[in-house]
């Protein structure tokens, strides 16, 4: 059983949903993001998403765009990112790690080599924003061979016919993009989420995590109950950004601020 499957099964036993925080690799520098990654499980992260910085994150809002830019400025590359995960795995062999990003840097690295190296570093799953199922063919084989889940995205615009297509070959969990919009902007209401989930549940046995627009502990708690997990990204990155000095460098308050917020989210999810 994969780390992702194991974790969701364990949470089901516990009777609660997952909290899935996000950090951007090398934001604002390699060591800070590595320290943050290492501190996240203790602060309540059940799974962790790491953003792979890209120059043109066209599905992301300003907060993640700026985080990606800081990461790139600090020298984020895929080998450094794999180094981060490897170092994390030395202390934590249970918390699933998912990489989220865009296709071009992965293709530049080479699909096969990417999957092999990501898996060797201890990565469990991939979310590739601009790789819809229709274009996922070339990635399918290498990801499967390396034991990586390709986590499929479902949007409010995904109709029932398309739902079948998207869920075909899906593994790990399903990521429900709860709003039509970019990251970190508006939020879906509980009613919207309650209406959307049964349709997806009927189409898959995989756990479902909700992302986009989840900011507060209340929203995280609610989403993690309606679905099986809640992803919080922009809200944490915004907190991190606020602690940086004018030169965009980390300050002594950077880690504590983000981790305090993560603890509040985790407490709410644990109800």
């Amino acid at each position: 059983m994969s780390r992702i499957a194991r974790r969701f099964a364990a949470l089901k036993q516990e009777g609660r949903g997952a909290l899935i925080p996000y950090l951007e690799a090398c934001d604002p520098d390699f060591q800070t993001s590595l320290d943050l990654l290492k501190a996240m499980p203790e602060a309540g992260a059940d799974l962790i998403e790491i953003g792979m910085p890209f120059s043109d994150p066209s599905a992301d809002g300003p907060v993640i765009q700026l985080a990606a830019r800081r990461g790139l400025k600090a020298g984020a590359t895929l080998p450094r990112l794999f180094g981060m995960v490897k170092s994390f795995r030395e202390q934590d062999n249970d918390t699933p790690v998912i990489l989220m990003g865009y296709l071009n840097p992965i293709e530049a690295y080479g699909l096969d080599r990417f999957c092999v190296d990501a898996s060797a570093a201890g990565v469990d799953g991939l979310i590739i924003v601009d790789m819809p199922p229709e274009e996922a063919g070339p990635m399918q084989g290498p990801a499967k061979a390396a034991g990586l889940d390709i986590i499929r995205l479902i949007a409010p615009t995904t109709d029932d016919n398309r739902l079948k297509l998207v869920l075909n070959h899906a593994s790990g969990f399903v990521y429900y993009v709860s709003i039509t919009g970019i990251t970190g902007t508006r939020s879906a209401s509980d009613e919207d989420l309650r209406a959307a989930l049964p349709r997806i549940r009927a189409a898959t046995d995989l756990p479902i995590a909700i992302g986009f627009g989840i900011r507060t502990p209340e929203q995280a708690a609610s989403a993690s109950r309606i679905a099986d997990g809640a992803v919080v990204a922009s809200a944490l990155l915004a907190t991190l950004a606020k602690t940086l000095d004018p030169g965009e460098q980390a300050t002594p308050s950077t880690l504590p601020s983000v981790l305090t917020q993560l603890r509040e989210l985790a407490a709410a999810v644990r109800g």
Partner: protein
Amino acid sequence: MTDGVRANSLRNGPDASGHFGDGLGGRFVAETLMPLLLELDEAYKVVKADPAFHKELAFYLKDYVGRPSPLWFAKRLTDELGGAKIYMKREELNHTGSHKLNNVMGQILLARRMGRTRIVAETGAGQHGVATATVCALFGMKCVIYMGATDVERQMPNVFRMKLLGAEVVPVTAGAGTLKDAMNEAMRDWVANISDTYFLVGTVAGPHPYPAMVRDFQSVIGDEVKVQMQEAEGRLPDVIVAAIGGGSNAMGIFHPFLDDPSVRLIGVEAAGHGLDSGKTAASIERGSRGVLHGNRTYLLQDENGQITEAHSISAGLDYPGVGPEHSWLYEIGRAEYVGITDDEALEAFQTCTRAEGIIPALESAHAVAHAVKIAPTLSPETLLVINISGRGDKDIFTVAEHLGVKL
């Protein structure tokens, strides 16, 4: 738009999933947009087969855009260069001053049929933005134009024009504030406003069906050249030269000739300070395959797959990618792609203006520059067509600055 296409035609692309050749093109977008692209694809298939749509489009192209545009025999330039017989396809005579209106007219009619009421578009030099704002005024649609902040600065007259036409112009400060960043922002707007908004793409790039659809709407250029050259010389042209940013004017003039192997097709990319200077917009000659803005194509990128900034004196060519069909024509060798530097384009801008009394857009001046380069090496029987994709009024400030003239 599709007459004369044969079974084994180079004009049949892309395939049903939007691919040209080995994996170029396609639809690389967030899931939220996929259903919209599929809907657009269906809607476009319907109008493509609908004679009433073509009749409506033909009406607007003739009486509003001002088509057909003339094919001008550039006698003075021909005599001066002493080689190939040079013709100019006068797209700069279209309403709003460029070829952009051909495509925009087609897409706005489609958007109306799809019941959309709000239009978003990206623009570089502002030619596409002005064309889009114009049809939105014509049909009373809400119009939002995303334009890089740097381009807003260097293309003030076009920004003012768009505002006069009733469009909201949103300066984009991300990245270097050029066309690439405007494209990201327009996509973000679309994904956030899918219920009423139509994304009116200005070039032969982006996710399927845009590259094919924009090409089809621009093919009116090449279709006319075919007829006009027949009338003027009784045969096909030998060489066609067109500038390439995203590549819509070039694709429009090339496409009807793809199955005519005697016709040499030359796409002119902006080499900026020089192909090897690191300050260039030559995506085919100095780029590599990658995925950006919804399609797989040639891109300027670093070894880590991060997109690099393009540079050109022409804001309209300043894009680190190119339409996927051009990438395919390059890979199969059907079209040639060359580079022209900022300086060469500036020189050609003046040559064309003085010799023919036609002030070309800086974009088009790149095509003129390459024609000037090769014409003397060709025989006087050679028929060479330059696509004058736009007029240069918008560029006189840039040109004056480079010539050290204060306006």
